[in-house]
């Protein structure tokens, strides 16, 4: 069952990577066109930092974890 779950997850991610690779290959965004993507309201960085700060109180309240790509570290809360 674990193998099935892992395979499923990898298949989803693989599909995503292919989709991203395919779409970005069709219309590659040039370096000088990335101004909006660098704006603080657009980056993923702030979301990842906020999620890391939220992780401890959320994991003390809910049964799931993850969603950021990084592990938050242990405590009595989780």
């Amino acid at each position, binding site marked *: *069952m*674990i193998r099935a*779950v*892992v395979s499923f*997850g*990898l298949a*989803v*991610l693989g599909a*995503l*990577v292919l989709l*991203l*690779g395919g*779409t*970005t*290959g069709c*219309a*590659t*965004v*040039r*370096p000088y*066109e*990335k*101004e*909006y*993507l660098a*704006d*603080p*309201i*657009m*980056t*993923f960085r702030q*979301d990842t930092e906020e999620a890391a*700060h939220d992780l*401890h*109180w959320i*994991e*003390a*309240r*809910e*049964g*799931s*974890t*993850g*969603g*950021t*790509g*990084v*592990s938050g*570290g*242990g*405590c*009595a*809360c*989780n």
Partner: protein
Amino acid sequence: MQLSRVLAPAAALGLLLPSGSLAIGESEAELRFGLFTDSDHVHVSSAGGAWGAEMDTWRLALDWLREVVTVPGITAAPGSQEALDSVSGASRPIASDSDPHADFSKVRQQVSGSVRRGTASAGYYVSAESDYFAQQVSGSYEQGFLQDNLLLTLSGSYGWDVIEPEEDEDGLAADDRKTTTHGALVATGVLTPVTMVQGGLEIARVAGLQHNPYRNVYVAGAYTVERHPDDRLRQDVFVRLNQYLPNRASAKVAYKLYRDDWGIHSHTIESKLAQYVGERVIVRYRHRWYTQDEADFWSDEYLLAGGIDGYRTGDYRLENFSSHLFGARISVDLGRGPVAVDWLENVDVVAKYERYFNSNNFSANILETAVALSF
């Protein structure tokens, strides 16, 4: 557990620092203060900070946090589940012989640091409470493709926790350990000059003590200590989409699917809308919806002495429920605008308020403020 157990490993971070003199480039620092209150009248006040700097080809980051959890005093019968809830899950020894009206207070301190050079980074985390000491090492590697329009990041971490329960009404539970091995593969892609997407897969294996050593469960007419499986395999897949909108705004949507081998499946959908107001203010709204089903061994009432498959739990996190989180955040650049102050030109002030409630009649208010400085 003593503060020195936090500081000593944290000081060892210095060994990660490259030697020799280094020119310091762009740096930033932040001070954060938070207050969490919930419907059980639990308070958590927190103070923390972060510092990051570039030194030649290295990037160093440090983060620290101090939380004080205060659980109000109640009259609790031995083995009851009351007064255990808190934002940090601070396990509270129940001692009905002691003053039942005394507040219970617990302090947690946390330090983490990371170094990055080029495409690789490494990090260390340590957290200390009176009955829980956690450490974690982590690393990541990223590689860009398609002229950096596609970024793949592989990361992993290993955490090891030492649990030394304090004495409670039932006596002194044995010391125990827990380890967490986590891996993630994340792909970040640029679709258009105004659209970015990110997808990830995470797997974590948790082994060791995973129940609350202070909590008892009512089973077949008697109280007995809670028992969870010693192993847990957790997986999640997530997708995030960020879209820049006209008039200097952005919309973000995220979805996470989670499952584990305790039988819990959950869905999380989160959305954020950010808007510049003038040159110096950013306002951001957030909504998060969460739903989960229950663990295989969850029951409102255990009729058999062994529980379900030998397991029994009073952990509210393992039952089915759904929740909502609404909130707003405002940040102000003090160095901009008609009344800008020169020496504050790289200072941002942030304030955030969020309201959380779930279908188990639990609710909480989260208030945070921060001052961020770049130099």
